[in-house]
């Protein structure tokens, strides 16, 4: 059986490396059939997940691995961002979305990373097992 079309990239946990993942994501998606207008948004969602791993899981500590797995299977794009740092204490079961109104008081200053992932991707899941934390996002592609 042939497995899904997939690749893994690993970066050192420095915020200056996040653009490497973003640029690679864009390059991959530009060469796979799919909704081209959504490429900048998927690039953004993946960068947000990598930023979270570096800032929250590793507390901005450098020299630690962040793995990004990308695969295409059955018309879907799957991206997993994994770290070995501190896990989310409680990952929200239902992710927050951007507020519907233009009411300023409802525009929060923080938490936009998860909101962006929820707006861009169809499914966002998180699991932590054996010291490895995985945030998996997927959406139709193709």
């Amino acid at each position: 059986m042939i497995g899904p079309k997939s690749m893994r990239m690993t970066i050192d946990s420095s915020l200056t490396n996040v653009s490497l993942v973003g640029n690679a994501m864009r390059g991959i998606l530009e060469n796979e059939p799919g909704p081209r207008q959504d490429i900048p948004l998927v690039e953004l969602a993946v960068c947000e997940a990598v930023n979270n791993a570096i800032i929250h899981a590793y507390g901005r500590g450098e020299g630690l691995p962040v793995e990004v797995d990308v695969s295409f299977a059955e018309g879907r794009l799957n991206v997993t961002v994994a770290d070995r740092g501190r896990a989310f204490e409680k990952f929200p079961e239902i992710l927050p979305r951007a507020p519907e109104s233009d009411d300023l008081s409802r525009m929060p200053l923080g938490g936009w990373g998860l909101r962006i992932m929820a707006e861009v991707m169809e499914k966002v899941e998180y699991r932590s097992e054996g010291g490895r934390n995985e945030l998996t996002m997927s959406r139709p592609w193709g």
Partner: protein
Amino acid sequence: MTVVETMIRGVAVLAPLGARLDAAGCGPFRRRMEQILLRGQTLVVCDLTAVTFMDSTGLAVLLLAVRALGTTGRLACVGVSPQVGKLFEITRLDQGLVGIHATVEEAVDALAGGGQS
């Protein structure tokens, strides 16, 4: 990242000159924004012409400004790239909170002239 500040008819125009306004490089832009808000500046234009990519860290700087300006001040953006435009769209920042203009002149006219953008 260099951030250029220009005053035009009482409007502070902030232009971050890096291509990425993200967690890695947003610090100088945030600090400059905080400085101009602290000194009581109420009309602010962000010239994003050089910016091709913005993440939630860059977005947070704009939201911080919108909050600080409240009902007495106004924030507008210029040179919004396709990626930044999509970020504004999914976070609904484009629905009235921030004026979006094609040129700095237009944005300054909208703010200094007291017009609604």
